[in-house]
């Protein structure tokens, strides 16, 4: 057994359907979600991880609707007693801003920038790795050496260099994340494609006159999806940590944006006096990252079991 999960989604059993009513499409989507949930429920690890992730996604999405304080409004009075109170459930930060609001709004930063970085990183990395592996020869040599060089570089120094030169912005954070996501993904994909391209179905595609582009992205890459999706889940968590690190080093989004890394940085000066100001954002960061990692573990577990 051991191969990829042989459970097919109900959605791909038929050929692409003709136009359907929106109600029918909704039922179909709901069915798909219900199916996915039943699939995930078979693994406790994945269920728990997905619950953690879903909690933060919901928090990020609902942030404007929730009855929260303004995350950048300053409440000097609260600084007299910055601990959790009925008014400020998680207390306030060193500048007197509500912690709960900042953490909930901070989830939007983490969950906004990480998917963009991971998605872009995967598009570029998969393409690079696939092309290098499929063509081989000098293309592969150049691409592989480039990957080695970037991966050998002290990445953090590279980020700081990049961001201090061009200034902190969401785009630059994504660019910094890409610098480490792309080579890692390219290397992973390259290995998978190198193995896949020796399979006979690739020779069969060549014999029916398929173009290299078709073979690479229609015949080969979809078959690498298992490990790639697995890696993507783990990389989500990793990228959130990276964004946190950038915020902590002061090269993340500029204040007063509610960014978890930045919050921890601001709390370091008062860590011994008011430790909760650092602990709460740390817990937020940790639960989200653990959530993604557990989802990755759960998927691996499910695909091995099936």
């Amino acid at each position, binding site marked *: 057994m051991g191969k990829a999960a042989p459970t097919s989604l109900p959605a791909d059993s038929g050929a692409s359907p003709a136009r359907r009513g929106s109600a029918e499409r909704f039922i179909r989507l709901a069915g798909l979600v219900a199916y996915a949930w039943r699939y995930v429920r078979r693994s406790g690890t994945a269920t728990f991880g997905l619950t953690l992730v879903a909690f933060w996604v919901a928090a990020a999405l609902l942030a404007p609707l929730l009855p929260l304080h303004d995350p950048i409004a300053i409440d000097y009075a609260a600084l007299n007693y910055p601990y959790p109170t009925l008014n400020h459930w998680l207390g306030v930060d060193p500048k007197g801003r509500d912690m709960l609001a900042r953490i909930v709004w901070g989830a939007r930063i983490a969950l906004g920038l990480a998917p963009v970085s991971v998605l872009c990183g995967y598009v570029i990395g998969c393409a690079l790795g696939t092309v290098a592996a499929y063509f081989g020869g000098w293309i592969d040599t150049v691409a592989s050496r480039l990957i080695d060089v970037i991966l050998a570089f002290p990445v953090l120094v590279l980020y700081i260099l990049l961001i201090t030169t061009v200034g902190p912005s969401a785009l630059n954070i994504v660019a910094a994340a890409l610098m480490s996501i792309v080579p890692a993904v390219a290397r992973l994909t390259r290995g998978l494609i190198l193995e896949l391209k020796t399979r*006979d179905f690739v020779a069969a*595609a*060549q*014999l*029916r006159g398929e173009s*290299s582009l078709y073979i690479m992205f229609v*015949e080969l890459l979809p078959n690498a999806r298992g490990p790639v999706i697995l890696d993507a889940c783990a990389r989500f968590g990793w990228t959130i940590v990276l964004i946190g690190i950038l915020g902590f080093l002061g090269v993340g989004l500029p204040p007063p944006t509610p960014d978890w890394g930045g919050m921890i940085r601001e709390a370091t000066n008062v860590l011994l006096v008011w430790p909760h100001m650092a602990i709460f954002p740390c817990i937020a960061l940790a639960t989200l990252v653990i959530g993604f990692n557990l989802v990755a573990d759960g998927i691996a577990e499910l695909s091995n079991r099936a």
Partner: protein
Amino acid sequence: MSTTPILSYRELSVAYRAVGGSVEAVRAVTFDVEPRQSFGLVGESGCGKSTLAMATMGYLGDSGFISHGSVSLLGKDLVGMDAGALRAVRGSQIAMVYQDPMASLNPAMTIGRQLTEGPVRHGLFARREAREQAIEMLRGVRLADAERMLDRYPHQLSGGQQQRVVIAMALIARPKLILLDEPTTGLDVTVEAAVLDLIASLKERFGVTLLYISHNLGLVAQVCDRVAIMYGGEIVEIGSVDDIFKNPRHPYTRALLACLPGAGETRRRLPALPGQIPSPGAAIPGCVFGPRCGEFHAGLCDSRPITLERPFLGDHAVRCVRSRAISGAMPASSPAPLRRVPPSSPLVGIEGVSKTYVSAKGPFGLKPAYRTVNANAGLDFEANRSEVLAIVGESGSGKSTFAKILTGLETADEGKIIIGGNDIARTPARRRSRALLKTFQMVFQNPDDTLNPSFSVAAALRRSLKKAGVPRRDLARRVHELLAVVRLPQELGDRRPYRLSGGQKQRVAIARALAAGPSVLVCDEPVSALDVSVQAAITNLLLDVQDSNAMTIILISHDLGLVQHMADRVVVMYAGHVVQFGAARDVYSRPQHPYTEVLLSARLNPDPRRPTHAIPMARRESPAPGKGCCFAARCPRYIGPVCDAEAPPPRPASDRNVFYCHWSPADLARPLPAMPASGSP
């Protein structure tokens, strides 16, 4: 039966834990293996024979367990034994030889260490003594230069040498019983014959008992005294080798024997078994084989559990209620050869095609020592329209490389491949015209690799048809037609490859190749990865489509029986050279070239009364490799320096048969001394 059996199974059932209960893989197996016997356990994949072996060794893993019955070794029950005692038994009384020698040798350890580790750990020998024993054992398995062999690593040995080392490893602790799980499946025919001969002689020398587990009926017929046939987790027939092969009574045994190609008339329709092996745990009332059985009688065969009975003289037992009624002639096979269109004019001409692989090997890639590997050296022959041209040879003879050059997956260094007046030897597939691509299509060896796991059967066929220029509105109809041609039910079109059996995958691969309407179908070992009964069905299908489309098949195979069955003409290759080329009937009846002679002599007949006498190959140093005859170093009919120095001239043995040798056809009529491939049963 006064002696204690070495190995004794009593009502043994083995099950695997699965979601929602357990699945029985082996059911109520009862038989004895007597001392010094060669026992053959035969069955197709999924019949439970490997599970039985693993249960015997106590290697069932976490999910498998013995649910009922017992296995005992020399009267001691192995089932309840604790881990320590079991380990002692495994080290000293049972040994196992696995199918893939590379997988049972540790690549990071020298041969010497691997050989001595076990016996030293079990306290059989001291380390120094173990080393002497290891050298002795390596000599015993006829490995030259045993002392130096001890310091080598597994990757430095050939497949045959590795399997000899594994056998030496099994023998060094002087076990009473050796389990051999497909011991020669990955080896070439000539190496297989030598390894089997070796095992037989070691059996005599050390008095061990052998339990062969194999799907190869030829092997079992040649080397075993007693045979059990397994199907669906049960023993369906058990008896002496003569009982099983000369007087088979169970319909499954009979079907297996009847569908072997190579015996009887060529190109006849092989009586393939319908249906598939039952999935483990499938609830079949009565006889497990019932759903596929031609002798099935409703009400009789499916009413009650069928037991193993002994209705005949001797110790021949059959699990079939109708065994008394089934006898005499084997299942009828259609006598009519599958041929309506006879071969005609030459279609593809191959002139001096050469391909050399250069492998640069040097420490750290600093100083590349170039080594050239001749994959194809000056091939000359032609393929006719509507014929089956077989290319036979051992692994590494260059037959697959030739197939790749023909289809454009590789290009030749020199020579010409002429089709329709054009030379295509150096045109890779990506530069071939659509029409040329459609001319050559290919069926590959491994059914698991041949289909893209992401696409459904219908999607794969649609794509192939579309690339062959079929208009969009005809696609659905043509997919239906193709599925019908390869005799697959239409509903399979929606399935992805993981939900297909090996035979079904291979049918889809044939349909995909046919989508282009090729005039040449290159089949690279098309059935070697399939079970015997499935092989027959695919062979029939290939001959059917070849005939109805008046297509040329270039069959690449090491299976001499299959080649004899299918081929009109045969090209025999050795080390990239054509050594003989002629009509299949002539090549098989009068193998002229010494290599053809060796190859055919090593065949394992599925008939215990026609023992294999494999001609041993010589092993001498070739003074100038690359010059002279390619077979000079291994030739049992070596003449002298002329063989090393001069390329052998073509010798026309008849107007349809050419071979390359310094001997004349008259000289070669003299027979060679042969060695028996096995101890006499």
